[in-house]
């Protein structure tokens, strides 16, 4: 809890434009995100923040939004129960409803075939849901998703750059804000994903947590590359 608040304030002070809190083990462990800290975060943060983790019902989402989060992000529960997206969008408006998608290329060679994975918070339970990523991106928009965070699993954690090919394919059919996730290792990776894949935002965790990329330096690099950022 202390760590969460300190990190939140650090990122806010460094110029992060949004903070996403992932409780990634919530779905595999069959529980909802712990809400006690959401209100504390809302008290200190004056930038938008999104909460993700095991939100399975309108009531789960409402509790988190009422504590002061801007948005809730749904991943595994949306795959198990797609109607939840419709319910959330109709109750709170699309702008509150972020759909997180963990996607990997399961194609052979040059044949790209993107599939949605679920329960990805636990390596032992993570599995291919069988859903085609591009079809799923279309479906969640029709159901009322207001934003999509595409986490490209083959890039995630290896810091070799975002999966520009996959993000470009999704961008082509995504009319709502698209956030790139997975693979950031250097400031140039951010420049690439904005310029080549046309995403609206780029998310990263480990490079910021470790301090290997400082947010002010990153934003200076982006601005120098002609990408509009809040400095």
């Amino acid at each position: 809890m202390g760590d969460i608040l300190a990190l939140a304030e650090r990122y806010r002070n460094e110029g992060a434009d949004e903070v996403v809190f992932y409780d990634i083990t919530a779905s595999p462990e069959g529980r909802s995100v712990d809400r006690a800290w959401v209100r504390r975060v809302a008290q200190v943060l004056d930038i938008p923040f999104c909460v993700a983790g095991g939100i399975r019902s309108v009531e789960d989402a409402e509790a988190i939004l009422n504590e002061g989060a801007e948005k809730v992000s749904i991943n595994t529960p949306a795959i198990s129960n797609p109607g939840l997206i419709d319910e959330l969008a109709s109750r709170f408006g699309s702008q509150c409803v972020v759909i997180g998608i963990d996607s990997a290329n399961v194609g052979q060679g040059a044949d790209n075939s993107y599939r949605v994975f679920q329960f990805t918070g636990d390596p032992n339970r993570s599995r291919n849901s069988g859903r085609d990523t591009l079809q799923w991106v279309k479906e969640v928009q029709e159901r009322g998703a207001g934003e999509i965070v595409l986490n490209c699993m083959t890039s995630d954690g290896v810091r070799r750059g975002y999966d520009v090919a996959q993000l470009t394919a999704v961008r082509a059919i995504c009319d709502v804000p698209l956030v790139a996730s997975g693979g950031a290792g250097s400031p140039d990776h951010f420049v690439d994903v904005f310029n080549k894949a046309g995403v609206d935002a780029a998310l990263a965790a480990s490079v910021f947590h470790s301090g290997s990329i400082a947010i002010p330096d990153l934003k200076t690099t982006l601005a120098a590359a002609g990408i509009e950022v809040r400095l």
Partner: protein
Amino acid sequence: MSAVAIIDSGGANIASLRAALARLGADSVVTTDHDLIRRAPRVLLPGVGSAHNAMLRLRGAGLDQLIPTLKQPLLGICLGMQLLFDRSDEGPVNCLGVIPGSIGKLQSEPGKPVPHMGWNQMTQVREDPLLDGIGSLDHVYFVHSFFAPTSSATVAITDYGVALTAVARRDNFCGTQFHPERSGVVGARLIANFLKQGS
């Protein structure tokens, strides 16, 4: 008496608004009580969700009759600003009618997805105490799918494919399309400016 009465419009951003006020040392009360609202030095009208549902809720509490009669500074935020206009296409529904004009739907286009969510610059088009000390090109945080076209009530505009009203005012009624409570130091300054009014 609390410095601000926040009209309980059922929106989910009330907690973050109260936190933003608390960071500025202002206490607030969340209410639909006519007497409390009428006597408050300042009134905030938040709103998240659809204009149709928000108006139903305001009407259910008789607030559609009360709000237009208020004389103290009132700040509508996001949907709360839109509700100050005559009507909204989101329904469609008749709104509070204290600012002339009609709310329309944003059309998505390449590079401008809808909902519009993110940090954008605003440009001030006329002087207003709400924007004291705020630079014309400062970024503020937007989350919306409907917008107020520019009009004589427009104080600041943001370009998002169309020129949309970022800040509006008519007399004591003002509003921001963006979320000052989530717009960092710029938003905090705007709220502080609002708190200076009516005192």
